[in-house]
């Protein structure tokens, strides 16, 4: 890939109209997804999940249990996919990697002084290297929101580029923490900075701040991905994270993806859901479609 890409002036990004974005999102939510389309969509959702645990109280035992769940979502029903990845702190990467040996499930690690990003660039690089050295397939970094809001776009750009370099073969997801960026114009700007700096994925949130992922924010990011693809031919992945906890909402997100970026993105190489409780609600819906009745929450394992 020797194509030279001109870096645009990030103070001049295209504007976003919030009212228009919200109207478009409302329209996605009116799509009626029924029967086989629903089952197919729900299985796709399962296969796109980054099953996540990011807590101070995480232990190796807890991570191992979650890894088992990632590969055995609901053994009662054969033919279900695995999740796309598990997402853990750097200290748990080795454990997760070991637990998932032999499966296709990737190990993603947050890094760069997650979730606030309030540290020096050196420490962020070291944090990333530690996760990569332990075998992380994917790195979920956070941007320096303070520098971004100051207008220090070059700093943000350079930091992403540096982390990308540190990642080596690992795919880089760049988290904006859109709940702290406050406007959709800023979300659009952050998306462009990250993509031009080399992000493989752009991601909404850490899950530690409310609001986390919303449909309007996700749509603005998908539209930025589309424009980047139109201009460069490079595909970038999307990961809404935090706050998507039920199957119906997840299907609305898939509708939005399908109608904004098309079929090429409808797989877990280009789209992920960062979620901890979404999987069980999706499983519950799939069982309902299969058996005709809803089952109680205790029929689905929580790990």
């Amino acid at each position, binding site marked *: 890939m020797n194509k030279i890409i001109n870096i645009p002036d990030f103070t001049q990004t295209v504007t976003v109209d919030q009212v228009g974005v919200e109207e478009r999102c409302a329209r996605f939510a009116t*799509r*009626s997804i029924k029967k086989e389309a629903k089952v197919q969509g729900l299985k796709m959702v399962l296969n796109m999940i980054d099953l996540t645990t990011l807590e101070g109280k995480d232990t190796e035992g807890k991570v191992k249990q979650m890894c088992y769940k990632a590969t055995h979502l609901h053994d009662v029903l054969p033919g279900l996919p695995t999740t796309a990845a598990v997402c853990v702190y750097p200290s748990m990467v080795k454990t997760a990697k070991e637990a998932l040996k032999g499966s296709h499930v990737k190990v993603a690690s947050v890094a760069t002084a997650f979730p606030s990003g309030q540290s020096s660039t050196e420490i962020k690089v070291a944090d990333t290297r530690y996760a990569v050295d332990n075998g992380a397939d994917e790195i979920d970094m956070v941007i320096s929101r303070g520098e971004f809001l100051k207008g220090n776009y070059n700093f943000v750009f350079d930091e992403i580029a540096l982390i990308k370099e540190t990642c080596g073969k690992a795919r880089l997801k760049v988290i904006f923490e859109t709940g702290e960026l406050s406007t959709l114009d800023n979300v659009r700007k952050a998306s462009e900075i990250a993509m031009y700096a080399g992000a*493989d994925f752009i991601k909404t949130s850490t899950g530690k701040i409310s609001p986390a992922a919303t449909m309007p924010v996700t749509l603005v990011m998908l*539209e930025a991905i589309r424009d980047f693809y139109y*201009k*460069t031919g490079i595909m970038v992945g999307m990961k809404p994270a935090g706050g998507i906890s039920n199957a119906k909402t997840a299907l609305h997100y898939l509708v939005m993806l399908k*109608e904004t970026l098309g*079929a090429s993105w409808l797989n877990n190489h*280009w789209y992920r859901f960062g979620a901890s409780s979404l999987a069980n609600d999706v499983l519950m819906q799939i069982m309902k479609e299969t058996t005709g009745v809803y089952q109680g929450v205790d029929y689905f394992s929580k790990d």
Partner: protein
Amino acid sequence: MGKKTTNSLDFTSGWAYAPAPEDTKHIQLKKQYDLFIDGKFVKPTKGKYFETVNPANEEVIASVAEADENDVNKAVKAARNAYQKVWGKMPGAERGKYIYRIARLMQERARELAVIESMDGGKPIRESRDIDIPLAANHFFYYAGWADKLNYAFPNRKPKALGVAGQIIPWNFPLLMAAWKIAPALACGNTVVLKPAETTPLTALKLAEIIQESGLPEGVVNIITGAGKTGATLVNHPDINKIAFTGSTDVGKIIQKAIAGTSKKSTLELGGKAANIVFDDAPIDQAVEGIINGIFFNQGHVCCAGSRLFIQENVADMVIQKLKDRMETLIVGNPLDKNTDIGAINSKAQLNTINNYLKIGKDEGAELYQSSCSIPKKGYFCRPTLFLNTSQSHRIVQEEIFGPVLTIQTFRTVEEVIEKANNIPYGLSAGVWTDKGSKIFNLTTKLRAGVVWANTYNKFDPTSPFGGYKESGFGREGGLHGLSAYLEF
């Protein structure tokens, strides 16, 4: 990082939505509908009926009475009688109660009305359910509130009702147009003879049932069905005080000739060929969405449709590429499917008109682009269509097509686009897309159009007046302006 050789998106393969048809079991339709005169359904004098067809499958839904001169006379007489004896004398607060009751009954039967609207007219259920029916009910709610406040609406002007209003409505928003016409007329104390369009009479007749159920005094609203001849008889009737017409400019001209020299008042809401203007500083993705809604809403059967797109030259390629991609995601088909974006063309005659314009456009040398979607074999359907490389001199740019057909021109300067936007016999509506507020206000003062939308399109509200300049007609409907059209001072 993945890389592809061509930068085009794939909207045709992969995950597809399963059919999601709206249930039709709950609707109640008769095989045959009579005329609603003096509070009762009565057979037409000559016993003539015509059929109304579902444009999505070409099947006959019901047969509907054709009113002749005798029937029109009866209806006008009933309306005059009701005006003199009951409605004209009734206090505004009492009138308001009836209008509120009609609004509530419409809400209660919203689902049924939406399904029938889509069956009879071909519009997608998403639109009839989310826009037509709620908005129609809102018009009744809004004008009900004015019924006892006319003196406050027009202080010191002593507003008085006109008498009997003859109202003729089009087929593109059948129930909504009935509401636009009936609600303000009743609030002001007038009585009504309404003629719905011949291809879409059913929701107006369901409204007649609702009116019957509401206990509105007999003869206050009369609904007579028929074609152009019935409408002409109504227009020419000597005992009508006001004609309110929404429809084509050609028929509007005939009406104006017919009532010239009489004391009949009139409001005419006629055709349009709106400019939708996108500047380079616009929120492009939302503008694309606005272009789509502007032209493909209700299959383009909208008098205020944004059918002439003007894009600033430096963003034209990008906007057109996005527009084409967005068109690929539009679902054309069964109006009753909840996922349908574009339903059936209202009638065979209208489909022929549209197809004729497609041919004219190609003959004029414009570049035609249509989405690749499949359309049903049966029924009247048209793919969403763009015409590129058009000029002001093209007929497809000058004439109202009334279908899902958008013509595209580019421009360089503000002065140029204002001149082009105004260079048309119509002046109903326009759209402006820019991030800059001052530019919006500059354009709204210079565009000769009754409605100018900024960074949105096709927004309707009962409180907001609607109507045109030039050949798009005169008079306003909606808001306070809509009241004054049914009053004398």
